[in-house]
C-alpha cells in the first residue's frame, strides 16, 4: 500500500466518519437552525470524502470507487483520527469535537493547497473554503456556550475535558507523514501544533473554559492500530445497506 494511498484515506476517513457522526443529528438538533447547520456541514464533509477517497481509489489502481472504499471496509482498515469517531453525546461534545477538528483541518488543508501533487492541491483548495466556514461557526458556538449559562458552561467544560486527550493524535508524525513531507505533499503533523495551540487556547480562554493540563494523547486511529469501540458500532449503521444487500446500487 503506497504512502499516498494511506495519506488520502486518512484525509477521506476523517471527513467520512465525522460527516456521518454529524448526520446522526439530522432531525434531532436542539434548534432548527442548528439541525440545518449540522446537516450542511455533514454534507460538505461527505462531499470532501468523495474527492479524497475517489482519488485514493485512482492512486490504488485496483478499480475501487469512493463508495467501495467507504462502504466495503471494516474497522481495522479505517485511518481516521480517534477524535472524529467519538460519539455525539450532547450538543456540547459535538461542537467541541468539531471545533478541535476544524482548527486542525483548516491549517492542514491550507498547507495542502501548496502540495506538489496537483489532485491533492485541487481537492484541498475546494475543501479549505468550506472548512473555514465550519471553523468560524464552531469557534463562535464554543464561545457562546462556554461563556453562556452555568449549565452550558459546565457541559462545554465536561466535553473539553473528555475530548482534549484525543487532540494530540492530530500532531503525531509517522513514516507515512515523513514520506508525504519529503514528496512536498503534506506538512509534518507536529509542525501544525504551535499555531493550533495558540488559536485554540485563545478561543477557549474567550469562552471562559479551562484548558486541561494533561499531555496524554490517545492514538491508534490514523495508523489503524487500535480504534475506539465506537467506530465499529457506527459502521454497522453506516454500512448496513451494503452489508444486508451486497452490491446494491441507487
Amino acid at each position: 500500500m503506497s504512502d499516498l494511498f494511506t495519506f488520502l484515506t486518512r484525509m477521506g476517513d476523517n471527513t467520512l466518519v465525522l460527516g456521518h457522526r454529524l448526520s446522526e443529528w439530522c432531525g434531532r438538533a436542539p434548534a432548527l437552525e442548528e439541525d440545518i447547520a449540522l446537516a450542511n456541514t455533514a454534507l460538505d464533509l461527505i462531499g470532501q470524502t468523495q474527492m479524497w477517497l475517489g482519488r485514493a481509489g485512482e492512486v490504488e489502481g485496483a478499480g475501487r470507487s469512493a463508495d467501495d472504499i467507504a462502504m466495503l471496509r471494516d474497522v481495522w482498515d479505517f485511518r481516521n483520527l480517534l477524535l472524529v469517531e467519538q460519539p455525539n453525546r450532547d450538543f456540547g461534545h459535538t461542537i467541541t469535537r468539531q471545533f478541535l477538528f476544524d482548527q486542525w483541518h483548516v491549517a492542514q488543508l491550507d498547507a495542502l493547497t501548496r502540495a506538489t501533487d496537483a489532485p491533492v492541491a485541487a481537492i484541498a483548495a475546494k475543501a479549505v473554503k468550506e472548512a473555514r466556514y465550519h471553523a468560524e461557526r464552531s469557534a463562535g458556538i464554543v464561545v457562546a456556550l462556554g461563556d453562556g449559562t452555568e449549565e452550558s458552561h459546565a457541559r462545554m467544560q465536561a466535553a473539553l475535558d473528555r475530548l482534549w486527550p484525543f487532540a494530540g493524535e492530530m500532531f503525531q508524525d509517522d513514516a507515512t507523514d515523513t514520506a508525504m513531507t519529503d514528496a512536498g505533499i503534506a506538512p509534518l503533523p507536529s509542525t501544525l501544533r504551535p499555531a493550533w495551540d495558540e488559536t485554540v487556547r485563545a478561543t477557549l480562554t474567550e469562552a471562559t473554559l479551562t484548558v486541561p493540563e494533561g499531555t496524554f494523547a490517545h492514538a491508534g486511529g490514523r495508523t489503524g492500530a487500535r480504534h475506539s469501540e465506537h467506530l465499529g458500532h457506527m459502521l454497522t449503521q453506516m454500512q448496513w445497506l451494503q452489508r444486508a444487500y451486497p452490491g446494491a446500487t441507487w
Partner: protein
Amino acid sequence: MPRPAPAPVPGSRADVTRPRARHATPSTDAALLDLLATIPDPEIPVITITDLGIVRAATLDGTTARVAITPTYSGCPATSLIALAVESRLRDAGLTPAIETRLDPPWTTDWLTEAAHEKLRAYGIAPPTGATRPRCPRCDSPATTEISRFGSTPCKAQWRCDACAEPFDHFKCH
C-alpha cells in the same frame, strides 16, 4: 391484464436515456453554450447553470459535446442532478455527452453573472455582494441580521430584515 410499465423515476438513468422531444443540434460552441444556458439550477430554478458560473468549458468535437462543470459545494446534492440534466439535454439535442467534473480552480460566487444577481434578488434571495450585511431583497433596507449561517441549501444562509421584519435567504459569498 398486463400492467403498463411504470413511468421512469425522474432523474433516473432510465429517465435520462429515454427518447423525448428533441432540441435542435447545436453546430457551434456558442450554440452549445446557449443550449446549456436553458438548464435551470435544480434548487434555485430561477437561475440557470450558466448564471451560476459552473459551466467552465463547452466545446463541440463532431457530435461529441465536451462540457466541464465545477461543483459549487463539495457535498451539494444538486451536483449529480445537474450532471444528469446536462447529459439528458445534450442527448436530446443529438449529441454524445462527455462531461468532466473540474475541481480546479474551485468555484467562487464571483462567477455568478450580473443577470444571476438580479434574478436572485427578484426571487427574494439576497445575492452575494461581499458586504458585511446583505440588503433586504424585499425592501432594500441595509439593516439586516443573521439568523443562521446555514440555510435550506449549502449555498444559502438565513437572515432577517430589521426594517420589514421578513426573513430571507442570503446566497453566501464563497
